[in-house]
């Protein structure tokens, strides 16, 4: 970031807000501002509103054994710039309270609930501080991400009823669904309030599969952490391990060899293609268009098979490593890959034509599950789901990483925000990804696959954003002694789940699975 921009941001603030800035500095990845805790909401709100900066992450760090306080970090991405503003406020360990950001930045809601659950810092003025990620019978004063909470602690189970939102009125029924579902999927509880057929309210309760990944990462040395990152969210494992590796590489100020950068793009796009194929197949399946769905699943299988052929893993595991990649693509692999892509491209067109020329399917897709552009921006919906509602953001273009700076691609954006728009965006993205792979594989530079990366110095901080198939994801790491001191992970689904609560309103309950599939959400990525 250029220093001018930094002073412009500060100069644009009214005096009564700017007085809360205690220190500013430029670091790799943008501006860092140490700010007064009480003015944090106003400062963050100003940058969010006046500079169109989206909230990328909000999280806490338990620094009590170093600086005797908790640190609260708010990371904002400046619109139209490859720059970030990180606001850091100190929260007194004896008075673990901070003013809530929710009145300024709507989507801070879940972040603050998560911080409350994991660190015991209370957001004053937050409209709803019920537990978000902890189990219902988790005791009140046990905060898992605090440093004095042992990783293997056994906590007593204390029954605490979770109070759901009540919707009352004549003829209103509540339909609770889950957390155990009919299919073999992950757990989530959905509470529909219906007036006749239409849904008038949906409340989502997640967290049933919370695994403590951030805590676990703090005791895994960096190389082992790659395998953990790969398993955060099964079908987005490459994107997660990429973000993790890039963060460690940034901590050590190492640049990755060009060949590895290109290969990372190839693998990341392979992951996008098979994930999107699964999603569009699921959309077809949930409209009872089974033949079409199987058609998509055949293509997905072909892509996963090519992953297996190239890397030895259908889910591209064991490919990323800190400093580069462990798998190369040789001449034979290259020609097999190109052949497979041509086949999938042609067959996909056939599948697409089948879906879009079947009126009974299109009737279900169009105008169902509408998410307006305004709601998508307020909730900060990322990835294809956001782009289908007019949110023109894509990390690959806005904050290029790996080899994306040298590859050309289009970012499809639609405005309708319905299931069909999400289907169309994903369809276009499949084609774009295939084109990216073709470009990358044809221009791949010769050279090393991996750079040597020294162990990062404790105390340094780095962040990496990656456009996973589901959208922007973030790994934010403070280096510790051989392993992360703090590792914040934010999956795309942490933002996107909330879109469901808005998009299904006015639809009928049988459309819920379809709308859900069109958002392609991850339970595992949300329930860290």
């Amino acid at each position, binding site marked *: 970031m250029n220093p001018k921009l930094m002073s412009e941001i500060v100069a644009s603030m009214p005096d009564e807000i700017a007085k809360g800035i205690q220190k500013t500095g430029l670091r790799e990845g943008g501006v860092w501002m140490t700010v007064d805790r009480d003015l944090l909401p106003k400062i963050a709100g100003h940058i969010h509103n006046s500079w169109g900066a989206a909230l990328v992450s909000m999280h806490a760090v338990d620094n009590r054994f170093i600086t005797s306080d908790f640190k609260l970090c708010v990371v904002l991405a400046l619109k139209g710039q490859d720059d970030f503003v990180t606001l850091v406020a100190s929260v007194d360990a004896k008075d673990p309270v901070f003013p809530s950001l929710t009145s300024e930045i709507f989507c801070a809601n879940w972040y603050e609930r998560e911080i409350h659950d994991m660190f015991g810092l209370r957001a004053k003025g937050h409209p709803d501080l019920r537990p978000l990620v902890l189990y219902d019978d988790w005791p009140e004063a046990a905060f898992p991400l605090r440093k004095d909470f042992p990783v293997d602690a056994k906590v007593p189970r204390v029954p605490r009823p979770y109070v759901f939102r009540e919707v009352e009125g004549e003829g209103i029924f509540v339909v609770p669904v889950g957390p155990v579902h009919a299919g073999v999927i992950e757990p989530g509880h959905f509470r529909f309030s219906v007036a006749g057929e239409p849904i008038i309210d949906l409340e989502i309760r997640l967290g049933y599969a919370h695994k403590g990944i951030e805590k676990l990462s703090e005791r895994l040395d960096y*190389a082992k952490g790659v*395998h953990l990152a790969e398993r955060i969210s099964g079908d987005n494992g490459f994107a997660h391990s990429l973000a993790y590796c890039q963060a460690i590489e940034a901590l050590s100020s190492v640049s990755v060899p060009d060949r590895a950068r290109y290969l990372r793009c190839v693998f990341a796009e392979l992951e996008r293609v098979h994930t999107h194929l699964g999603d569009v197949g699921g959309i077809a399946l949930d409209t009872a268009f089974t033949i079409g769905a199987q058609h998509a699943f*055949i293509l997905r299988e072909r892509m996963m098979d090519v992953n297996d052929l190239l890397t*030895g*893993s259908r889910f591209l595991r*064991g490919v990323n490593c800190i400093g580069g990649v462990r798998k190369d693509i040789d001449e034979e692999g290259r020609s097999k890959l190109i052949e497979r892509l041509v086949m999938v491209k042609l067959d996909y067109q056939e599948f697409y034509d*089948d879906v879009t020329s079947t009126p009974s399917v299109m009737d279900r897709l169009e105008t169902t599950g509408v998410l307006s552009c305004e709601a998508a921006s307020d909730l900060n919906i990322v990835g294809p789901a956001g782009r289908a509602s007019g949110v023109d953001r894509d990390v690959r273009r806005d904050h290029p990483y790996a080899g994306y700076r040298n590859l050309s691609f289009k970012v499809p954006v639609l405005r309708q925000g319905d299931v069909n728009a999400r289907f169309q965006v994903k369809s276009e993205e499949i084609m774009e990804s295939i084109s990216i792979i073709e470009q990358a594989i044809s221009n791949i530079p010769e050279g090393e696959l991996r750079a040597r990366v020294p162990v990062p110095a404790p105390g340094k901080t780095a962040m990496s954003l990656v456009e996973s198939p589901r959208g922007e994801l973030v790994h934010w790491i403070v280096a510790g002694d051989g392993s992360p001191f703090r590792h914040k992970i934010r999956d795309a689904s942490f933002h996107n789940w909330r879109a469901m609560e808005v998009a299904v309103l006015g639809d009928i309950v049988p459309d819920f699975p379809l709308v859900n599939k069109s958002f392609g959400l991850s339970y595992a990525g949300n329930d860290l």
Partner: protein
Amino acid sequence: MGKGVVTERYPNIPYVPHDGIHGAPSFNMDKCRSDKTCEEICPTDAIHIEPDQLCIDLGLCIFCGDCALACPHHAVTMTNEFELASKRRKGLVRVHAIKQ
């Protein structure tokens, strides 16, 4: 729209995996010097080396291949073996005698 038959008659007709898939790691005990490199590098603690034996627990192994890359004596290789199911937990643990 017809695609013909795309499914395979597994297990009646055996599945032949691609070369280089990460199946079960195999330990060549003639080369092993029991220096514990694999035990230390394994991210899931799947390998245990005792004075007289090496145990690999395939129930814990995530087939990452780190042990094979790390072994200075090339005693570990990743194989194509993928049919590892067992009806008993113990059936997933393989024990190799260490040659002194």
